[in-house]
């Protein structure tokens, strides 16, 4: 465990959908300036954990603590107000709209009353440029449609947006899964950038090669249960990969294939 006081913490959490136990007895915490990776193969319970953290689904056992106090999120909006922002895989962007309009989508700055209110366009452009700059994203033009950006840049704009609107903890849902090697590197760089700015990051992924360089701690899930939580010092990438892939199963498979 690191020294940082956890912002968001779950203890012995479980989630049951009808008769399906999707998650049981999971504990994890994330503090300021920390990157916690949640790893697991498909169906391991990553998405369920993410939804509990994001306030989408309530947990059925255990407890969620925010700044050390037990809390139950009423919904995603509630979690967002508490500073827990989730960046989903589809990013909630509109490809044909300019970067700055996407940045402020649904939270536009405007002045004036009623029908005479108008957007503060220059201010929003400047803030977008500045916020992206702080993340190390140097755009030539915030007026270009966001669809013209690369996948990694789009992901980074979504992260920057979450940070700007007051997130203390950012939950990233498979931010690198659809990206090429270079683009994934770009995103990892921004994850590190967010960490250095004092945010807590929960990085949900099935790729240990993306998680290992940037993560401080790793929670490995398998079939809804924890296979353990590891400090970076306590585990190497080979061990992490082996654990994730089901360890012994993979070795058996490798032997079988070799023989064939």
């Amino acid at each position, binding site marked *: 465990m690191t020294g940082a006081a956890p912002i968001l913490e779950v203890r012995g959490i479980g989630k049951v959908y009808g008769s399906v136990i999707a998650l049981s007895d999971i504990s994890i915490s994330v503090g300021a300036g920390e990157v916690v990776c949640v790893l697991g193969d498909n169906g391991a319970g990553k998405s369920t954990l993410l939804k509990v953290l994001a306030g989408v689904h309530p947990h059925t056992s255990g407890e969620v603590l925010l700044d050390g106090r037990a809390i139950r999120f009423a919904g995603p909006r509630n979690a967002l107000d508490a500073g827990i922002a989730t960046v989903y895989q589809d990013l909630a962007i509109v490809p*044909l709209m300019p970067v700055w309009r996407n940045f402020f*989508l649904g939270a536009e700055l405007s002045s004036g009353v009623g029908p005479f209110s108008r*957007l503060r366009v220059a201010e929003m452009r400047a803030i977008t440029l500045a916020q992206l700059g702080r993340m190390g994203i140097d755009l030539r033009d915030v007026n270009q449609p966001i669809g013209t950006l690369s996948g990694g840049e789009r992901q980074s704009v979504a992260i920057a947006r979450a940070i700007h609107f007051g997130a203390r903890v950012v939950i990233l849902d498979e931010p690198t899964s659809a990206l090429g090697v270079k683009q994934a590197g770009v995103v990892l760089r921004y994850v590190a950038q967010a960490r250095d700015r004092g945010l807590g990051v929960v990085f949900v992924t099935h790729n240990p090669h993306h998680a290992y360089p940037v993560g401080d701690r790793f929670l490995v899930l398998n079939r809804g249960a924890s296979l353990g939580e590891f400090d970076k010092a306590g585990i190497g990438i080979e061990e992490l990969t082996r654990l994730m892939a089901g360890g012994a199963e993979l070795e058996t498979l490798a032997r079988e294939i070799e023989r064939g």
Partner: protein
Amino acid sequence: MTTLTPVRSRTGDERLAVTHPVKRLLRRPEMGAFIAALVIFGYFSVSTAAFLTPAGAATWLYSASLFGIMAVAVAMLMIGGEFDLSAGAMTGTTGLLVGAFTTQWGMNLWLAMLLALLIALAVGAVNGLLVVKTGIPSFIVTLATFFILQGVNLAGTKLLTGQVAIQGMTLVPGFEAGKVIFGGVIPVFGLDLKVSVFWWIGLTAVTSWVLLRTRYGNWIFAIGGQLQSAMQTGIPVRRTRIGLFLGTAAAGWLVGMLSLFDVATVQATTGIGQEFIYIICAVVGGCLLTGGYGSAIGAALGALIYGMILQGIVFAQWDNNWLKAFLGGMLLLAVLVNLSVRRQAGVRA
């Protein structure tokens, strides 16, 4: 680990070509329509004697204005990702309602107009609610409304008057006052412009402002561009979409009033078949059929093109059936241009 170099430097990104200002201007949604309008204006000005005369210009501007008002409202709806096929018939319905209320039942003119507006808005609300609540494509919902209105317009008019038109509006008290607002003529630089031209210009300006400089406009682009994202970012999606259908209904009422006070007679078939012309004007003006992109000024220019061709063909004494063929060609060309816009923005699917 703490020092990170920016991924991109301001000057040296080899993947970004420097965009020439002219090229950037050409990428605006309404640019294609603007150039086409110039070409068509030039052609008819040179090839016909009547086109550039004050009387001629007033004629094609009037023609364009009625289509333009509808095209602008329809463009706003299309940017929001929907269609309204009942928009044309609505211009007839509202005119017929006012005609029937006043000439048949002796209702006060202004009250009749207000009532017609409320009925139009109610039809728009039904369109919007059905689309939002059921998820049925607006193309189908408004196609149904279109046929219902068409049937009611024809059957209702026959039932009331025994004819296929409502006449005698000039005898209704207050008609002259109404004509000042909706059917008057204002001379500008020797042009006797019908008042509808000013309604058209005013509405285009207001719609443009709403689309580009208000939160509501931002929401419309987002809803049409990516509905899922609009919902995720907390935009009041339902309210905004229903509002767009109210917009086209209200525009239908306005055009209904403008034509009613212009000729004092309403044909039961008024507006039928024009719903596609509004859509064509919007598309020629740069609106994507798939939503999320377009402009009010573009739609107004699309209508201007239509008005100029409609009257230009008459002045040139061609067979006016060429109009339809020409319109189809324009539409196809516009759709191809718009397609490349989408590709440039890197939008897949």
